[in-house]
């Protein structure tokens, strides 16, 4: 047993998710894409902390926080309040962040996830609480050493939900699966785009290790600012190994806050000397406590969309999909919605729609980096395309070509088939003639086939397809070709007959 296996990692996560509201958490400034907005344009006295300005709670932000809480199986607390978290930093204009402390809106939830190795994990969600995002800082490094920082307050005050798990994860795979699940859930609820490059979703991981079998927790470190799944998994893996190496060398892990250096692929200490935090939390006196009436919780629960797990179960049970296909389709609410829209226009087996969607449309989308929402192939059109295949009007290969055309131009399948003359040829007489011509032109291959080289059959099929520009119905060709080959005798007359038949045509 190597030394890594002698230890068990213990990992908890804090996920900060911006909520997708029209206005900010405590003021009427618009929530914008802060990666593209002009600096300091969506600001007001409230979100820039000007003297005298006061917060006013955004109702929709509370509703969205409740949606997430419910989706994560949390209890929504009837009594909730805001608290001030006091510290100084230039991204925090008031000198405190309005957050929640003793009385968060949602507590005691859980999620079940399956990781990439098919291992199941039950991860408890300790709490989800509302707060406000901070301003954006741009650090400018000057060669002369006169470094400075620029501040853009557009992001400041955007509603933020902090989702805190229990330290229930014991592998990088579990961390990946949990983070994926949270992102998927947020996207399902329509409260967050999951767009990590835009910074609307940010991860932090608390990592400790302990000897397997121990039930005491080791000293933990906190890795901040993990802004991609890659950073999350690499940093967590790195940190687990780093801590094990320290313990193996007889050392002790120092409790500290770490950053992740994506260039060196290593965590680094964010502070030379760790100050004890003293955030001096106290109830926000500018905001009265909030009573969440049962009726409101019910109202929000009623509009909660079907969540991925329920949808997955339904797709397997109602549509007969494989669990794998169902997993892929429900991974994105828009994809699942696309799939079901396509089914409305389709009468065959749902699994063929799944196959075309996952196998073919995804290929095109990935190739061109196009989202399902932006794909020009609309669900009903895809369904009709598959219908043409089912009806024998189009062979599968042509159908792929038609899909490519639909994807590129947004055209309708029938029109493309018509314009390109791609309709399948399945009439025996026409195809028998083509088969005869192919055999006549390739006498040597026919001989080889008859000598027992079976693979020549496929090659001859290919020649027929080629001669029909791919439009021949494969099963018809296969039948005609088999019959034609079987009817040839070994005599030279026979060969001559083939030739003469071919010439006659």
């Amino acid at each position, binding site marked *: 047993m190597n030394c890594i296996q002698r230890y068990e990692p213990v990992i908890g996560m804090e996920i900060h998710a911006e909520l997708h*509201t*029209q*206005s900010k958490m405590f003021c*009427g*400034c*618009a*929530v914008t894409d802060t990666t593209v907005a*002009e*600096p*300091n*344009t*969506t*600001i*007001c*006295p409230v979100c*820039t902390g000007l003297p005298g300005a006061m917060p*006013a*709670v*955004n*109702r*929709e*932000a*509370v509703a969205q926080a409740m949606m997430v809480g419910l989706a994560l199986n949390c209890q929504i607390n009837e*009594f909730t*309040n805001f608290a001030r978290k006091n*510290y*100084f*930093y*230039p991204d925090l204009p008031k000198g405190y962040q309005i957050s929640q402390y003793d009385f968060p809106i949602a507590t005691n939830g859980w999620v079940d996830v399956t990781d990439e190795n098919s291992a199941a994990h039950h991860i408890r969600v300790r709490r989800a609480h509302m707060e406000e995002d901070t301003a954006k*800082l*741009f*650090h400018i490094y000057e060669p002369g050493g*006169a*470094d*400075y*920082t*620029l*501040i*853009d*307050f557009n992001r400041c005050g955007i509603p933020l939900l902090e989702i805190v798990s229990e330290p229930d994860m014991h592998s990088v795979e579990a961390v990946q699966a949990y983070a994926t699940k949270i992102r998927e859930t947020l996207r399902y609820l329509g409260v967050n785009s999951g767009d990590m490059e835009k910074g609307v979703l940010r991860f932090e991981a608390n990592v400790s290790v302990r000897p397997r079998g121990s039930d005491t927790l080791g000293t933990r470190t906190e890795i901040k600012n993990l802004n991609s799944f890659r950073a999350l998994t690499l940093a967590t893996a790195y940190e687990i190994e780093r801590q094990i190496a320290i313990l193996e060398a007889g050392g002790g892990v120092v409790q500290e806050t770490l950053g992740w250096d994506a260039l060196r692929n290593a965590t680094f200490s*964010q*502070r*030379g*000397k760790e*100050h004890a*935090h*003293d955030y*001096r939390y106290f*109830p926000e*006196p500018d905001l*009265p*406590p*909030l*009573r*969440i*009436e049962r009726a*409101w919780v019910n109202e929000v629960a009623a509009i909660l969309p079907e969540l991925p797990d329920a949808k997955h179960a339904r797709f397997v049970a109602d549509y007969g999909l494989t669990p794998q296909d169902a997993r892929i389709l429900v991974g994105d609410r828009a994809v699942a919605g696309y799939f079901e829209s396509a089914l409305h226009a389709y009468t065959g087996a749902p699994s063929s729609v799944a196959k075309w969607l996952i196998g073919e449309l995804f290929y095109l989308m990935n190739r061109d980096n196009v989202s399902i929402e932006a794909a020009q192939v609309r669900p009903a059109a895809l369904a009709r395309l598959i219908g043409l295949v089912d009806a024998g009007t189009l062979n599968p290969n042509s159908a792929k070509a038609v899909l490519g055309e639909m994807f590129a131009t947004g055209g309708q399948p029938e029109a493309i088939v018509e314009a390109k003359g791609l309709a399948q040829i399945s009439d025996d007489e026409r195809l028998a003639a083509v088969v005869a011509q192919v055999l006549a032109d390739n006498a040597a291959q026919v001989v080889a086939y008859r000598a027992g080289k079976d693979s020549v059959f496929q090659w001859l099929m290919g020649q027929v397809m080629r001669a029909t520009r791919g439009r021949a119905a494969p099963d018809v060709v296969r039948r005609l070709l088999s019959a034609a080959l079987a009817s040839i005798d070994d005599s030279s007359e026979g060969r001559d007959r083939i030739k003469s038949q071919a010439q006659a045509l």
Partner: protein
Amino acid sequence: MSQRIDSDLVQHIAFLTRLALTEEETALFSEQFSAIIDYFDVLGEVDVSAVAPFTQPQITQAELREDVAHPSMAREDFLANIPQRQGDYVRVSMVLENSRM
């Protein structure tokens, strides 16, 4: 629960609240704070075992702000009071990570 507030504690609190203090101020405040905090210990006389802390009357769903975006303040109005600006940004000298506390 008499509480002496020594110079170290005063210095610590001064740093937490970002107030530079001279040595004389530190000594004076330490003296004054000890007396004031000692006086506050009078609250220890009150039996609060069955008392919930004071809060404002709770508000409910209907009293929360409608999620509607309003025009923001003009950027120049905001930037007019900025001690140091650069272009459309607020500028400060370098932020060191260990200044967050």
